[in-house]
Structure formats: structure tokens, C-alpha cells
């Protein structure tokens, strides 16, 4: 099988998933993102003309304000023209097929699509049918992948921990339904993290998850022991209706990240969350706002990483 996200020169044509992404491309994205951050304090992001004259279409079939906004900011800092389309509330409800929508958007001469869709595989589907000079960035497809989130998480880990080869990382929560978790797992294993753990009740773990290269824990105390990085996942309210969990309270008791549970991790452990957080369900406010939390840095770095991805794709035309 050919890798659908690389062009014939082995360069990134689309960013659809972190799975099978060559490690050098991952490192290039992270390095490029570093350059977008101001050298002085590592926080401020510069405006550059790399995408001047290019059109970036944010095509969101599923509602999202945060992710769409960060992509919009990233594209604008690259001097691109940005068009936001919330398809969820227009075309498909009028009966237009996904393929028609894609064709129409291509006809509007987009250079790049940032796509979010509720179905796993939607980004691959769109990438298969777009015009050959159009780049597709997956901003989340069903339960499958959310590669820019995972890349910004890797950037954050590298920022605080410098290296990957000596880390123990735990991902906590609803692995089964999480595109973020899948993309994080592939990114972490690609970058050579020797020990990736997932911590969840059996109802929130997919079959044979260990084949993705992770160790499975059902107990927070054991799973967090001596970890360097804790990646928390958001818990969707509908998990209670689907009989996956009895209640938010019990979930917090067993899997919510509290200071007490975090004490089992290494003293310099960092805590991350893709947002938006459910305080008091998957994470205690004291931890979310505490010294170990780097959650707001993730948001800042997210813009730089998305700029890095967009500028790399534009350079591979």
C-alpha cells in the first residue's frame, strides 16, 4: 500500500494521520514550529508571508470553535486568505454529498483544506478526491486521527523534556472513542518513546490496543507510577448513556487526575490536556491550574505547530 499522505518524492502532500509518518518529517515539523516561536521567550509568534496569496479553507463538518480558531490564526500569521465553512449546518443538510462539496470547494481554487468530520476516514476520503495541487490537513475525523493535536503535544513534550528516548508517558481516559489518543500513540512510538501506557476502564479501550505498542493499565496509581508525562483525554457526556460508564462521579473517583494520584508520577511530571477540559470529571481544578500543568502552553504551541504544518505543505507543491 502506498502512503496516501506522501507525494512521489516522499514529501508531505497531506497531513491525515501520524501513523506511518516518517520520523524525519515529524522532527522537521517540530523544528519548523520552533522557528515560528520568538527566540527571546519562546512564546511570541511572528507573522510571516509564507502563504501570501494562498487560500486556506477551514471545512468543518463537525462543530468546533477552538480547533478552527487556532487553524485560522495560524493561517493568518502565514499571511494566507482564510475562508471558514461550517458545512455541518449547510450543504449536507440540503442533501449534497461529501463528494459534491469537495468538488465545489476545489472549483473555488482552494490551496489547502483543513477538514473536520464525524466519520473516521473522512480526511483520507477527501484527500483521494481533491485536485492534485490541493493539500488536506485532517483536523479530526471520527475516532481515527487528529494529527496536529498530537504534533503540538509532541512539541510541548519536547519543549519541557528535551528528549523522547528516556520518557514514560501515560494517556488517561476514553481511548476507545479518542482520535487524539490514537494520533498521540503513533506520534510517541514514532519519536522513540520507550514506554507508552494507556489507563482506562475496559469499556473505554478498543480491542487489541496493545498492538499499537502500548501497555494497558486499569488502575491510575499503578499506571501513573514514575511517568514523566500525563496526557489526559476529554470525557464525552454521552459515554454515560451508552452504558460505558455508570456516572461522572465514579469516573472522577477512579480515573480523574487529582494531586493525590499525580503524586505517583515523577516529581517533574508534566500534565497535558487537549481541551476543552471537564473540570471535576477527568481532571481536578487544582491539577489543571497547578505547577505540573502545561495546558495553556499547548494552546500557544498549537498555533506554531499548525503554522509549521501549513508552511511545509505549501512548500511541497
Amino acid at each position, binding site marked *: 500500500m502506498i502512503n496516501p499522505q506522501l507525494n512521489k518524492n516522499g514529501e508531505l502532500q497531506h497531513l491525515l494521520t501520524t501513523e506511518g509518518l516518517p520520523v524525519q518529517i515529524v522532527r522537521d515539523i517540530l523544528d519548523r514550529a520552533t522557528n515560528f516561536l520568538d527566540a527571546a521567550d519562546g512564546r511570541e509568534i511572528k507573522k510571516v508571508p509564507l502563504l501570501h496569496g494562498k487560500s486556506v479553507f477551514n471545512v468543518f463538518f463537525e462543530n468546533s470553535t477552538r480547533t478552527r480558531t487556532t487553524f485560522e490564526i495560524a493561517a493568518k500569521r502565514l499571511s494566507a486568505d482564510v475562508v471558514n465553512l461550517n458545512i455541518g449546518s449547510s450543504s449536507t443538510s440540503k442533501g449534497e454529498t461529501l*463528494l459534491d462539496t469537495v468538488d465545489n470547494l476545489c472549483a473555488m481554487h482552494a490551496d489547502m483544506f483543513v477538514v473536520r468530520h464525524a466519520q473516521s476516514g473522512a480526511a483520507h476520503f477527501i484527500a483521494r478526491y481533491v485536485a492534485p495541487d490541493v493539500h488536506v490537513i485532517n483536523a479530526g*475525523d471520527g475516532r481515527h486521527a487528529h494529527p496536529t493535536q498530537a504534533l503540538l503535544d509532541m512539541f510541548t513534550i519536547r519543549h519541557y523534556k528535551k528528549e523522547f528516548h528516556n520518557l514514560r508517558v501515560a494517556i488517561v481516559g476514553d481511548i476507545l472513542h479518542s482520535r487524539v489518543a490514537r494520533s498521540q500513540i503513533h506520534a510517541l512510538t514514532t519519536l522513540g518513546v520507550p514506554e507508552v501506557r494507556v489507563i482506562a476502564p475496559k469499556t473505554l479501550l478498543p480491542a*487489541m490496543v496493545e498492538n499499537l505498542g502500548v501497555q494497558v493499565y486499569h488502575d491510575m496509581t499503578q499506571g501513573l507510577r514514575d511517568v514523566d508525562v500525563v496526557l489526559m483525554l476529554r470525557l464525552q457526556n454521552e459515554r454515560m448513556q451508552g452504558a460505558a460508564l455508570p456516572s461522572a462521579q465514579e469516573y472522577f473517583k477512579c480515573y480523574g487526575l487529582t494531586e493525590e494520584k499525580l503524586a505517583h508520577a515523577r516529581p517533574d511530571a508534566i500534565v497535558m490536556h487537549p481541551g476543552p477540559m471537564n473540570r471535576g470529571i477527568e481532571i481536578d481544578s487544582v491539577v489543571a491550574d497547578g505547577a505540573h500543568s502545561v495546558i495553556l502552553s499547548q494552546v500557544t504551541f498549537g498555533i506554531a505547530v499548525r503554522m509549521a504544518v501549513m508552511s511545509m505543505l505549501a512548500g511541497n507543491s
Partner: protein
Amino acid sequence: MNIQIKNGRLIDPKYSIDKVCDVFIAAGKIAAIGAAPPGFAADKVIDATGLVVAPGLIDLAARLREPGYEYMATLESEMEAAVAGGITSLACPPDTEPPLDEPGLVEMLKHRARNLNQAHVYPVGALTTALQGQELTEMAELVDAGCVAFSQADAPLADTRVLHRAMQYAATFGFSVWLRPQDSFLAREGVAHDGEVATRCGLPAIPVCAETIALATMLMLARNTGAKLHICRLSSAAGVEMIRAAKQQGLAVTCDVSMNHVHLSEMDIGFFDPNCHLVPPLRSLRDRAALRAALCDGTVDAICSDHTPVDEDAKQLPFAEAEAGATGLELLLPLVLKWAQQDNFSLSAALAKATLHPAQILGLDAGYLSVGATADVCIFDPVAYWKVESAVLKSQGKNTPFTGFEVQGKVRYTLVDGQIVYQSESPTSHG
């Protein structure tokens, strides 16, 4: 018309005949094998040198899409595809629109099919009204109209009391019940096998226990009611084990598998190939190996095409939204041959899985070629290669996971009731 099929390799799975000889057809029957019967004058001589002369294929599951889904396929297109694939009899499931739950619908279908004068069509009637799993259909009336068995197709029958009653009622008259084992609660929203690939791709999954739990219920009810049970589209190694055990205990259960599941696995989904969105889901390589072993040892009785033509628009969607199913009528023969070759299974025994055994499941006097048998014949070139492409398929359904495959085995002639109903355009070309 008197036809002499000259010098072909005759395969008759019933009497394990595999030899080069002439076959003589008169009055729609096999009149003689070897030497011409006294006074036989051939109106037509088919030179079958280098070709295999086999019973016409009998397909236990071919959706013709009529009535109701004519935009996906029509009786005309699919019957043409059937005979082009060497299929001379086929059973069609009741999941049409409306479902085959009334004698009038069945009579109309039989009538339309008969007028096309191609393959024999054997409708499988709906087990419950509108396939809704609540009320029984008029089974005796439906049998009079032409139904050969009763099924829920892929519609759920969650209420076990209704299933119990339906099987009791069918058993009263000796009617067969064909069921695909899948617990509708466990399968809810699922589109792929609950394994490595669904986990990697983030696809909602159907666990193997959805099959085994439903299968356990069905086997238990068959024991309890004495109904003739046929299990459709077995997909898992665990399911195979249960059928094997039931047969060893003397239960008269039969089962089939789709050709897709003999050749493909969850791995073929790759990057969300919607052509691999099938029902039941493609399972693991281990499951596929178990299905193949079960075909060889007789636990699985038959291979069917599970022909499900789908229109292009319904397939060009992300994996889970794409309509499930694949075209299959024209691929059944080459894929049976491919399996036989890969598993080192004799041609005669392999063809039995798509001729004699399905005939027995249908209760038909067909699927063999000896003197007196109906002259439903498939004459094919066993070594000719052809490439699976939408342009060469006569079916209106063009989607198949086998697109681009080079397959071996090309039908040259198809005879139904002693009449040539299909002849390939280029009988001498090998490619």
C-alpha cells in the same frame, strides 16, 4: 435442441467424475455421456477442448434488487451477469423494497425472471412481515408462490420468542429457515471487525461474540424446534467451531460463507477502502484461515457470492457511511477456483461447494451432471486470465474489493435447461 459438447473435461461432483469425454444434451436433459445415444443428431456442437464442463453454479445469495432498488440494479442486468458468471440457479434474499413477504411479490419476481429465460431464480421469503421481526409471514402461501426458504436477510430479529415461534411454525411444514447470526445489540453501529484494524482506524466495531451469541441461540432453537436451519455468511473461527460441534452432535444444520470472506480479511480495509465495507465484517486472518479449513473439512457446506450491487453514489462516502456490499455474480467461479488452487483442493470438490452442496441446501435436483440430470451447464476455460474491472462486469453493481485483481477462470458457455443462454464474445482469446 440437441447439443453435443465435445472433448471437454467433465466434472461431476456428485459421482466424483473428472475425465475428458463428450456430453450429449437432448430435451433439456443430459441424454448421454461418452458415446452418443442411438439416433442422436446434434443441432449444435460445442468444441470444449481444453475447457471444463461443470454443473452450472448455484448461488445461495444474490441480491437482484427488484423490487424497489432498481437504481442499484435490475433483474435484466443481474440475470445477464449471473449467466456470464456461469450461474444457472440463484437464491435471492427477501431484503427488497417492499420485502418479499407477500405471495404476489414472489409470483411477480418469479414471472419476471422466467420471462428473461436465463438463470433459475429461487426467492427466499421473509420470515417476518416487512422483516420487522414481529409477525410471521404466510409461509405456506409463500411456498406455493415459489419461496424455497425463509430468512430475515440482514434485518435484526431481536425478539427470541418471535424467532422461536417462527422456527416452530416453519418446522411444522418442513420449511427451511436461513439465518445470518448477528446479535443486533452487540453489532449496533458497528462497521468493522473488533480487532486490530478497527482499533487503528477508529471504526465502530462488531465483536465476534455478536456472531457466536446469535449462533448459540439459533442452534439451541433448531434443536428445540426441529426446524431445518441454514446458517448464512459465517465469519469467525469461533462460529466455525460451534457449527463443527453442532454437526458432530448430529444436528442437521448447514452453513455457507461468502467468497469475500474466503479471500479477504480486515487488513484489506487498508486506508478505509469502502469496497471492503461488507456484511458481516471482514474478520482477522485467523478467522479467514478457519473458514477455509472449515470449507475443506466440510463444516462449511457452500460458498456464495453474496452479490450486493450498490450504486456508485452510495459507495463514494467515508467508510462507515458507504453502503455495505459488493458485486459478486461474475466473480464466484474465479474465486472458487482461486481458493481451490491456493488450498490444494481438487477441482471437483471445490466446485461442489458452489454446485452440488448449495443444490442440496435448496432442496433442488441439480448441481450434478449425469444422465437424466437437467442440462444446467457451465463450460469454462480454467486457465484464461482476466482482469476485474468495472467495464467488463455486466452487473450494474461495479464495486468490488477485487477490482484490479487478475483472476483465472473464464466462462465460455452457460446452458440452462439445455439452452445456450450465454456465450462469451471471444471464445478463442485467452486474456
